[in-house]
């Protein structure tokens, strides 16, 4: 595949996995948790690097999962101690992120791991680092990892679809039916963490939040069915990723920035024109309602 092809492929995989995960972040009212985890996985990656002296996929994943779970757990713990939930989120993730930044700046700073790269990502580097896979041939490492994550996330969502639905909609009922609500919560935190870390190379810690939240928030405006919302959100993510690449190529600017910008455009379009909850649709309904009186 061409250099451009790999970049678009990678970006699309980011859009797809983030789009799917984002739906549940929105519905569970945990958008801010995505922001937090996207930052704390940096500490996970740095720690994994310190321990193993390697920057490969599997170490990063394990580090990210631990960091993500630690974040979720500490936020919960501070909250039970009486700190406001959003305040405890702010305290935990900035502190863990800061530790990551300090570690990078002092002991592990090298070409592969620097703060700017971690925050903004650099998708243009991705096609250079390749690995050989049987049958498929040479594949960029980050892309292969993303493809694996997309498959894993999709499997988890589809296999436990009704459990995700009920624990999201009515956790009290779910618990009374014997569904392990707490386990599902932390499993979800794992999914957010692996999705975030896999998207890290491509879009960085800040832009990944846009990919997680905005396509899902847009899809929410178009449909009243969870399954459709998942499909739409994934599609919006892919569309924004591809559109973002071409915007960046056209204006000769940052790809991750353009992708995040494209998600904003998708949302703006949905917000204005969605037939169910769009601004014009509700304006129309209002007008019709007024005419009746």
């Amino acid at each position, binding site marked *: 595949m061409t250099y451009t092809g790999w970049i678009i492929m990678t970006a699309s995989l980011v859009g797809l996995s983030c789009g799917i995960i984002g739906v549940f972040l929105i*519905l569970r009212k945990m958008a801010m948790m995505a922001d937090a985890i996207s930052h704390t996985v940096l500490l996970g990656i740095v720690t994994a690097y310190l321990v193993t002296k390697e920057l490969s996929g599997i170490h990063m994943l394990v580090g990210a999962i631990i960091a993500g779970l630690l974040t979720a757990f500490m936020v919960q713990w501070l909250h039970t101690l*009486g700190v406001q939930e959003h305040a405890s989120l702010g305290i935990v993730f900035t502190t863990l992120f800061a530790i990551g930044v300090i570690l990078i700046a002092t002991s592990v700073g090298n070409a592969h791991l620097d703060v700017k790269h971690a925050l903004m990502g650099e998708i243009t580097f991705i096609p250079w680092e390749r690995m050989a896979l049987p049958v498929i041939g040479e594949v960029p490492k980050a892309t292969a990892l993303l493809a694996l994550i997309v498959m894993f996330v999709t499997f988890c969502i589809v296999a436990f679809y*009704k459990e995700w639905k009920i624990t999201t909609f*009515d956790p*009290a009922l779910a618990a009374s039916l*014997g569904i392990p609500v707490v386990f599902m919560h932390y499993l979800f935190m794992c999914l957010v963490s692996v999705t975030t870390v896999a998207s890290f190379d491509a879009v960085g810690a800040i832009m990944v939040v846009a990919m997680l939240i905005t396509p899902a928030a847009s899809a929410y405006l178009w449909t*009243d069915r*969870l399954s459709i*919302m998942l499909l739409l959100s994934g599609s919006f993510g892919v569309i924004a990723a591809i559109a973002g690449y071409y915007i960046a190529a056209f204006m000769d600017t940052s790809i991750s920035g353009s992708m995040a910008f494209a998600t904003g455009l998708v949302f703006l379009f949905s917000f204005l024109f969605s037939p169910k909850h769009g601004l014009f649709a509700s304006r129309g309904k209002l007008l019709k309602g007024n005419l009746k009186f």
Partner: protein
Amino acid sequence: MSDIVLKVGNLAAAYRKNTVLENVSFEINSGSLTGIVGPNGAGKSTLMKTMLNLHPSLQGTVSFFHSSLEKMKKRIGYVPQRGSVDWDFPTDALDVVTMGLYGQVGWFKRASSAHKRKAYEALEKMGMADYANRQISQLSGGQQQRVFLARALVQEADLYFMDEPLAGVDAATERAIMKTLQELKSIGKTVLVVHHDLQTVTDYYDHVLFLNRTVIAHGKTKEVFTRNNIAKTYGGDIRWLGEENGYGLYPVK
């Protein structure tokens, strides 16, 4: 013939460091319809959640059907407060009712058409068949509560816990819900209901449990629903409406 289906012993629970419930002990016989009444903050909802282990208990024991919650989960149905869920969730009424069957569907499986049919019949019973495919945010408060009741019915439990099912519903819904609860009782099910309207207690429930952080009184409505107990539970501040032997206001019939 009336067997003890729920036994609570010395139960205590707290929110943060504030004790909400202490030394709560009572027994519920099968086939009874019990109203749990008490002022705001008396711990009515917390009691339900603590019994069902949805809220941690500090101490005490709860046994269901002479056994543990874990073993008896399938025989217990819980209806949370309507306000505890997000009604903007992307789903329809039928789907919400189907959720009541998820415990029976099992892991890795989808709800079958038989499950869907059962859910639809429950909606029909609650007079909601026409709204089966309606997005849940477009239902009125009363309709949402009926959906919740339908969801409880499909669980086919033997012991039901209902947290304020009559809060903020219209008169027709209140009638429909109370009729359903009476039917459940008549086929031998046991129902506990958190209730907030003292005026209707004598008409709706055969047993009443006065709660204010602990059990003030519990027994047959005829015997324990007295002014004295009401005053003890509500701190004597209650303003008496109407005459000596009526309460001035009447329940919907």
